[in-house]
């Protein structure tokens, strides 16, 4: 039984909301209600996480750049992001004449909703005797991949529907970048699937030896692909502020722009969680750290997040054709080598050789 669902049920019953006693339909209503509250909770958790990530990023960036960073709103400026968000809600939502209004309105949600949904699929591990997993179907890895493939489509739609040449170029770049990293990324994950013989993220992450050690090449490819996926410098080609002004989201304003902005940071943290789950799982079985899997996951994810943010702050943008060269001529062959390597590892582990 899933801990979270059980907990919500328990609280609901404690405050006197219990439809389950009214027969079959009552039970159905109760299940839907519990699921809805659970989804709302994860949405809130994801939004709060993103806001925390943005605050950390701004403070960290300011520190590296010898500035102070936000320090006016609240102690140490912690409410700055809330003030920013309120400001963004209050802005006028401008839809330019040349746009395709429906697609233009729709694109930000296509970027943001899959992102929030993919937060649901991560097995957050155990915290004492609670297991924090929201969804534990057999194919969570495939679902994550499917959701993450939707994000660039949202960017491309945003770029094409804006009716501006900069955003058109940004959309084309998003498509090109998407193609260059996604195939190596998926192929490197296929290696993981072969070795663990599972498509479930929880099974993959509970592998005794972390996959970063078993498959260093795959880990490397996946890391590069994740930088490309979150599209921050050095690989922020769809956005590339100094070349395409703001790339695919140039025409957006107000809340819709805010959604894109949140999406960037949400992507960063999700990528950190994803890479820690897939490639750095497996520690929780050790005796002296049992029951703290959730904390370990967060530590690993934050380390990756800081790596991504440091790259963002320190590096210039790579040229678009250079990145496509890397994607097709370096990462793709490497991922095929990694595939052969994984088959070898899998054979070794199952005792065929």
């Amino acid at each position, binding site marked *: 039984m899933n801990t979270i669902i059980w907990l919500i049920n328990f609280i609901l019953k404690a405050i006197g909301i219990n439809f389950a006693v009214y027969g079959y339909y009552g039970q159905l209503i109760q299940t839907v209600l519990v699921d809805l509250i659970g989804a709302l909770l994860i949405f809130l958790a994801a939004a709060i996480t993103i806001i925390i990530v943005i605050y950390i990023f701004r403070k960290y*960036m300011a520190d590296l750049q010898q500035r102070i960073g936000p320090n006016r709103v609240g102690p140490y400026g912690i409410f700055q992001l809330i003030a920013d968000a309120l400001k963004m809600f209050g802005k006028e939502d401008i839809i330019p004449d040349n746009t395709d209004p429906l697609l233009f309105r729709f694109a930000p949600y296509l970027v943001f909703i899959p992102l929030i949904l993919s937060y649901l699929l991560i097995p957050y591990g155990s915290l004492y005797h609670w297991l924090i997993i929201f969804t534990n179907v057999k194919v969570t890895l495939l679902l994550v991949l499917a959701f993450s493939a939707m994000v660039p489509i949202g960017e491309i739609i945003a770029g094409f529907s804006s009716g501006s*040449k900069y955003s058109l170029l940004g959309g084309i770049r998003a498509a090109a970048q998407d193609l260059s990293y996604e195939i190596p990324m998926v192929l490197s994950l296929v290696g993981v699937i072969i070795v663990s013989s599972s498509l479930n993220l929880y099974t993959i992450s509970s592998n005794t030896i972390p996959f970063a050690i078993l498959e260093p090449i795959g880990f490397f490819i996946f890391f590069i692909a994740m930088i490309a996926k979150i599209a921050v410098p050095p690989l922020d080609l769809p956005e590339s502020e100094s070349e395409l002004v703001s790339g695919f989201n140039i025409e957006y304003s107000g809340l819709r722009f805010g959604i894109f902005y949140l999406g960037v940071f949400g992507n960063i943290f999700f990528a950190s969680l994803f890479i820690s789950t897939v490639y750095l799982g497996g520690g929780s079985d050790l005796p002296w750290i049992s029951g703290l899997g959730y904390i370990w996951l967060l530590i690993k994810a934050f380390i990756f997040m800081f790596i991504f943010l440091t790259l963002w702050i320190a590096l210039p943008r790579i040229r678009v054709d250079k990145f496509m060269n890397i994607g097709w001529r370096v990462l793709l062959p490497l991922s095929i080598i990694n595939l052969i390597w994984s088959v070898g590892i899998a054979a070794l582990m199952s005792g065929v050789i």
Partner: protein
Amino acid sequence: MEERIIDVNFGPQHPSTHGVLRVKVKLNGETIVNAEPIIGYLHRNAEKLSEDKFYPSVAIFMDRLDYVSNHNMELGYVLAVEKLAEVQVPERANWIRMMVVELNRIASHLVWAGTMGLDLGMITPFFYTFREREKIIQLFEMLSGARLTYNYISIGGVYKDIPGEFKDKFLEFYNEFPKRLDEIQSLFMENEIFIQRMKGIGYLSPEKAMSYSITGPVLRASGIKYDIRKNFPYLYYDKVDFEIPTAKDGDNFSRFIVRMEEMRQSLKIAKQAFDKMPEGEYFNPLYRKQGLIKIKGKGESYSRTESPRGEFGVYVIGDGTSKPYRVRIRSPAFHALSATNEMVKGSKIADMIATLSTLDPVFGEVDR
């Protein structure tokens, strides 16, 4: 496959055009077929405005030409008028001028280095360079009372003598700066992506550079050792010891290296000027009072100075009254910009941004 050429207007409002440059680009995918820079969005016609002002008042227009190296602009104009009106300048004033001009060159190159980083997508070096620039600006504030438009170098000398506390601050800066410059340079040079973005991009051949009348670091990066300070020494540049850094490749990376090295040389000159400065008058007492109308000249004179962007020249024609008849300004970045198409044709959009940033145009000066 059908080739579709799209026209894109880069600017005049664009984050990396250093002001209000507009580049009309014909793009085939991401490749540039033709790039035509269009200028004039910051045009104030300083030349016409100058005709209606007294000689010393014109200097304020010069301040507003190249707003990151104002001292250099003032110097160019003041030298031209001094030749025209036969104004004697005390020796100390000339040494002070040399010092502030070289410090201003460092400040200008620091701004360039920071904004170039921004253009390439590096945010961080900008803050490091501006921290150093801030120290120089504080020195200038001590001298002239202003942070940006100093109006310090005036006809007949400099506006004020060096204050007492300046010496310590200057020596502190002199000792600190080489370390900081190494740090800034390593932020760029130890970065593989930066080198990839710069090496071999934006090539300008020495022949084309000469034909386009390009001067300054852009020319020297193409391998031609030409510097007004050495070739046509003004002030006391023949009495100080410094090198002219050059590079051979003529690409963006050479321009980067040349400017970085130039900052070290400028610091050397500023220190020498500071040491060799004799005691005495800092302003010609003849022009201290009612200087506005006293300065008159008939004839023509052209002054050549080396501003951070190249040869800055002012051509002044006087008709014997206390207002100039005609002031003509030669702006160095104007010419560097006119060769844009030579450098960026056939390269990618990202390369054009990198190339434009290494040309270091400042639009107050290009558009005048």
